[in-house]
């Protein structure tokens, strides 16, 4: 399970970085979202992966670390707010700059809203 989990995080991160480097606002936003997913999964794993172990003491014989789950929850909420902001920013930038390149100037000039 750990190998699969690690591979998932790795692939998400790699895709995210690839997309951020695309230099167009929409792929950049997708990339940032994937990176934040990867980080959240990673953060979750820092409490060690355990099956059938609730995050509550006394419910069963084994229990898992509840703190990373609380951290991930916080990080998800913050990430959600940030993504919402970036989407609106990107939309506004497309309207304002008349193109979706992150430099504000389209090197190819092949795209018009």
């Amino acid at each position, binding site marked *: 399970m750990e190998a699969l989990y690690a591979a998932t995080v790795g692939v998400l991160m790699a895709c995210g970085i690839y997309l951020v480097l695309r230099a167009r606002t929409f792929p950049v936003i997708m990339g940032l979202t994937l990176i934040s997913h990867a980080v959240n999964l990673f*953060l979750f794993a*820092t409490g060690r992966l355990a099956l059938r172990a609730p995050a509550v003491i006394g419910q069963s014989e084994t229990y898992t670390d509840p*703190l990373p789950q609380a951290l991930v929850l916080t990080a998800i909420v913050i990430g959600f707010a940030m993504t919402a902001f970036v989407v609106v920013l990107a939309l*506004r*930038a497309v309207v*304002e700059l008349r193109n979706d390149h992150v430099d504000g100037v389209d090197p190819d000039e092949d795209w018009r809203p």
Partner: protein
Amino acid sequence: MSLAALPILVPLAAGALSVAFWRSVAAQRAIALAGTLILLFVSILLMQQVHSEGFVVLHMGGWQAPLGITLAVDMLGAIMVLLTGITGLAIALFSLGDTPERHEKFGYYPLMHLLLAGVAGSFVTGDIFNLYVWFEVMLIASFALLTLGGERAQMEGAIKYVTLNLFSSAIFLSAVGILYGLVGTLNMADIAQKLGQVEDTGMVNVVAVMFMVAFGIKASAFPLFFWLPASYHTPLVGVSALFAGLLTKVGVYSLFRMFTVVFDHDVAYTHTILLWVAALTMLSGVLGAAAQFEFRRILSFHIISQIGYMILGLALYTPLAIIGGVFYIMHHIIVKTTLFLVSGVTYRLTGTHELSELGGFYRERPMLSVLFLIPAFSLAGMPPLSGFFAKLIVIRAGIEAEAWTVTAVALLVGLLTLYSMVKIWAEVFWKARPEAEDGVQRPEPRTEGLVWMYVAITGLAACTIFIGLNGQPIYNLAEVAAEQLMQPQGYIDAVLEGRP
């Protein structure tokens, strides 16, 4: 009620009140002034308490460290909070005179308070995850302030700013995750204590470098500074000044905190990287400024080069160097904010930031010229202003540590800083104002509210002179801060006292 929480609560309350008075700009202005005044008052009280007691620690909700979230203020934290108070008040005063009403109606003041709360929160927290949360509070407020108005240039700068800062937050968060996986705690003092027992020192170095990258992006250190000159010259001048004074310094503060209290196990590795980063940051910033001919762009590049001096103080890692770094932060926040505010006045009177179109201010506004010369000479390191002592301490520390290359770089960069300041002086103040092109009507200068702007600038300029003339007491404060950072056991004991 402990004083440690007040620097966060006061701006948050002021922000909430401003939102409640959304329709009344007059009320929001009054709250902005009152809120920042109270913040300054609270920060002075906090400074007094830290000065007499050493540390002010507050365990939120009564949960003892390391279980709950801890607010822990040492001398460095208190100094930073005090500077936040001073800058906040200056910006509020300046904004009263300069912020256009359409910005005020769209939440300028609530966002300003939120930003101050985020900055103050980062300075007082003793919990690494809580630091991340305050970073995000500060970031979201800065995003909104940066794009307020929605002009072309702002959008372009904002996309770079937002993307790189979010990326840095992702790195920060992963580093927090690994650190938690290693030591099983998020309390900085507890981490510092337990990190020594971790056997996998390679992994600790990986985490250290991840923190270095994350905070390096926030502090705009080499080679991660490109978002700063792309965005800082685009928003309202008051906003630029607030960012220039405080935001990058939060990154620097975090570096100081993490690389003295927490990561002091392998100084030869981590601080050597920091040393080269410092040298290259100083150089690239000052060279970038030499190539610019726009008032705020020059100042933006100089933020980068000055960040290099602060990191140099940290990287040398001797008591004197840390004192120099802390002194430099104190000096820099005030001076940089002043310079940006001066650019706001020249913009108000001419409607441009381009050096080629400005001119004649020495003849028309001698008072403003003096107010520019004070921070400009201070930035370049002329005695008896604050910048001289800041540079003197850092460079002396460099000589004592026999780090010749970086010391030489620091001296050279000081000289080049003077070149940039003289360039601004010659173009904006000394030369006659170029004639307007035929048929182009110059807009009439708007002078309403100029008094507020002058009050803010004069106050800050007085601060830099004050620091310069009272070098010794300020040095003593920095010395206390440095001692606490170099011997983190005091901080650890203060936080973990009474632990189960």
